[in-house]
C-alpha cells in the first residue's frame, strides 16, 4: 500500500471518527452552563438578575434585557442564553415548574434572603443549580418522615423524581421490582397509584400498558415485540414466571378463543405422552403444573385420578418424602385418597 493511500485512509478514518463522536454526543461546541459561580464571586446579588423573585415568582429565568443591563456590548445579536446556558438547565427548570409546588417568596425570608443556603451547588460549579432533596429535608423533616411527598410534588408518577435514599428504578427494573418493592410498598405508594400494580398484576387486565402504548418501542414490557410467537418457549423455560400475573386458566382460555385448543381439536400432546415405556407426562407436569391445570384443572383432574388413585395403575404421583398440611378429607387429597385411606 502506497504512502498516499495510507494518508487518505487515515484522513477517512479521522473524519469517520469525528462524525461518530458527533453522533455519540461527544461535541465540544455545545452551549456551556451559565457561569453562576463567576457572577456570585463577582459580588453580584442573585436578585439583581432574578428580579422579582421575592414577590411570588415561582421558578425564574432572567430575560435578555436583564443581561444587557450590565453587558452593554454583547458580542453578537443572538440571545445570550443560546450559548451561556444549557438546554438541559432550561428543560429542568420547565420540568420543575410543571411538577413542583414551590414559591421563592415564602422561602427567601426564612433563608435570610441568602439564596446560597439552598442553592449550595452554585459554590462548587455551574452544573448543579437545583438543590437536592436532602437540602429540602433539612427543614422539611416532618414531610419526609410522614412521606408527604405531595406537599411539594405534583404528579410524581410522571415526574419520576426520587430522593437519593430511594431504591433506584434503573437496570432491569421490570424483572427486579418484585424483590425491591417487597420491602418498600409504602414508598412505592408515595408516587404510584393503585393502577401501577393493577395494570399488570390485576386479574382483570384487558391490555398491558405497553400494548396500549404500542407506538413507543422503548416502553418496558415482559410481552414486548413478537412475544405472542415465542411465548410457548418462554413459558416452558420459566413456567412459574407466568403465574406471577396469570391464572392457570389463562392458557386454555386464550387457546380455545384462538381455536388452537378445545373439544373439537386433536390432543396437543406428542406420541408417548402417556404409556408404559415412554412416559413424558409426569416429568412435564412437574415442570409446568400450571400448563396442565389450565386444561385439566377442576373437573379435569378426574382424568389423572383414573390411574393415579390409591391402588391405581399409575402409582403415587408424590415424590419421595412428600408431605402436606392440607387435611386428607379436603381437596385435592380426597380425589385419590378415599376417606381413611392414606
Amino acid at each position: 500500500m502506497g504512502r498516499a493511500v495510507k494518508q487518505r485512509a487515515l484522513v477517512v478514518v479521522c473524519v469517520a471518527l469525528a462524525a461518530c463522536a458527533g453522533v455519540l454526543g461527544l461535541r465540544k461546541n455545545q452551549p456551556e452552563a451559565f457561569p453562576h459561580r463567576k457572577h456570585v464571586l463577582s459580588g453580584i446579588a442573585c436578585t439583581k438578575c432574578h428580579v422579582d423573585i421575592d414577590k411570588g415568582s415561582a421558578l425564574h429565568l432572567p430575560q435578555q434585557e436583564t443581561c444587557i443591563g450590565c453587558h452593554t456590548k454583547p458580542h453578537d445579536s443572538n440571545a445570550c442564553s443560546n450559548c451561556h446556558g444549557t438546554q438541559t438547565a432550561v428543560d429542568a427548570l420547565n420540568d420543575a415548574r410543571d411538577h413542583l409546588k414551590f414559591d421563592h417568596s415564602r422561602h427567601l425570608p426564612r433563608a435570610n434572603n441568602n439564596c446560597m443556603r439552598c442553592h449550595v451547588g452554585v459554590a462548587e460549579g455551574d452544573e448543579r443549580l437545583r438543590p437536592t432533596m436532602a437540602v429540602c429535608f433539612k427543614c422539611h423533616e416532618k414531610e419526609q418522615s410522614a412521606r408527604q411527598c405531595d406537599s411539594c410534588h405534583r404528579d410524581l408518577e410522571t415526574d419520576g423524581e426520587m430522593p437519593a435514599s430511594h431504591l433506584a428504578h434503573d437496570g432491569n427494573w421490570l424483572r427486579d421490582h418484585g424483590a425491591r418493592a417487597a420491602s418498600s410498598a409504602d414508598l412505592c405508594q408515595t408516587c404510584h397509584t393503585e393502577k401501577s400494580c393493577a395494570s399488570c398484576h390485576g386479574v382483570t387486565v384487558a391490555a398491558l400498558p405497553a400494548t396500549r402504548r404500542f407506538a413507543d418501542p422503548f416502553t418496558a414490557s415482559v410481552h414486548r415485540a413478537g412475544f405472542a410467537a415465542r411465548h410457548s418457549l418462554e413459558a416452558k423455560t420459566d413456567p412459574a414466571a407466568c403465574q406471577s400475573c396469570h391464572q392457570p386458566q389463562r392458557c386454555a382460555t386464550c387457546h380455545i378463543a384462538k381455536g388452537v385448543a378445545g373439544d373439537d381439536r386433536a390432543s396437543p400432546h406428542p406420541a408417548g405422552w402417556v404409556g408404559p415405556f415412554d412416559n413424558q407426562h409426569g416429568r412435564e407436569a412437574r415442570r409446568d403444573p400450571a400448563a396442565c391445570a389450565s386444561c385439566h384443572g377442576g373437573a379435569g383432574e378426574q382424568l389423572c385420578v383414573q390411574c393415579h388413585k390409591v391402588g391405581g395403575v399409575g402409582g403415587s404421583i408424590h415424590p419421595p418424602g412428600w408431605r402436606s398440611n392440607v387435611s386428607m378429607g379436603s381437596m385435592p387429597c380426597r380425589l385419590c385418597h378415599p376417606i381413611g385411606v392414606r
Partner: protein
Amino acid sequence: MKRFAAVALALAASRVSADPLRLRADALATTQSPAGLVMLEADAKASATINAEAVLWTAASPLPGQEAGDVLVMAVRARTRDGRASGRIGRFVATLGALRPVHLDGAAGRVRLPHRFDVEAYAGVPVMPGLATDRAWDWAAGGRVSRRLGDFGSVGVAMLEQRDAGKLATREVGVDAGLQLDKHDDLGARFAYDLANPGIADVGGSVIRRDGKLRGELYGGYRAASHLLPATSLFTVLGDTPSSRAGGILSGRVAPRLEVGGDMGVRGAGGDIAPALALRTRLALDDKFASAISGELRRDGLGEDKWSGARVAARIALPYSFTAASEVEVVVPDVDRGRGRVWPWALAALAWDHGPWHAAAAVEASASAEYRRRIDALFTLGRQWGAP
C-alpha cells in the same frame, strides 16, 4: 342579585372541587382480538389525606362471547396527616413483602408503631374476572410486620392465607429486605415459603452497584411453579421441579448519547441448564433521547425450547408533535418442530402527542408457529383531563 350570587358561588365551588379530579380515556382498536377496547381512568383528591381512583374497561371482539368489561381498580385511600396510619378500601392489588400480589375486593391498612416498626394487613375477597358473583366463601387475609432501618431500608416478615370455597388454597410466609447500603450500592431480597405443601415457593434478590456512569448487578431467583398454584389443585402435589436463574448485568452510558449493556446469566429447570444472554445498546439521536435507535441480541431458553433473537427499534421525533417508530424482531428457535425456522415480527407506527391528546396508528406484521403470515392494524386515541 342573591340568586346570581348563589349561582356564581355554586359554579366556583364546583370548579374548586373539580380541580383535583383527573380523567383519562383511551380507546384501542386492533384487527386482532380484542378488536376494540375502551379504558377509563379517574383519580381525585378530596383533601390532602383522602383520594380515590378508578380504572375500568370494556372490550368488544369479533369472536362470539368475547365481549367483556371489568373494573380493574376502584379504591378510596385515606391517611392521617402525620402519615402514621393509612388505609384503603375497594378493589386493588394488595402486596405484602415477599408474598405474591393479590387482586382483592376488600380493605387494607398500615400503621407506624414506635421503635420504627410498621404493621400492615389486608383482608377481602379475591377478584374473579368478568364481574363474577358466584363465589362461595372465598377470602384472603394477610399481614406483615416490618422494621425500618434508618432511612436506608427495611426488613419484614409477612404471612398470607387464602381460601377458595372455604378450602385452603394458599398459606404462605415470606421474609423481605431492601437496603440502600450507601450512595453506590443497594440490595433487594425476598423469600417465600409455602406452608400448605411445605416447600420454597419463591426466592429472589439482587445487589446493585453504581459507579459513575457504570452500573453492575448480580441477581438470582428460584421459583417452584407447583407452590404458586392454589393448594386445592391436584397439580400442587407432584413435587418440586423449580426453575432458577442467576447472573450479572453490566451497563452504562459509554458516551453522552450511547448506552450499552450486557446480561450474562444461566437458567435451570428440571435438570436442564443453559445460558441466558442479552446484549443491548441504545443510541440517542438528540440530547433529550426523544429520538433513538436501539438494538438487542438474545440467547435464551432451555432444552428443546432454546432460541436466539435480534431486535432493532427506532423512535424518531418529527415536527408538529408527531413521532415515527419502528421495531423489527427475528426469533430463531433451535428446534422448529414444523412451526417454522424463523419467526419475524415487525411494527411501524406513527404517533401524535399534543397537549392532553395522544393518537397513534400502526401496522404489525409477523410470521410464527400460529400464523404463516399475518398483518394487523392498530389504532389508539387517548385524552387526559385535569393533568397538571
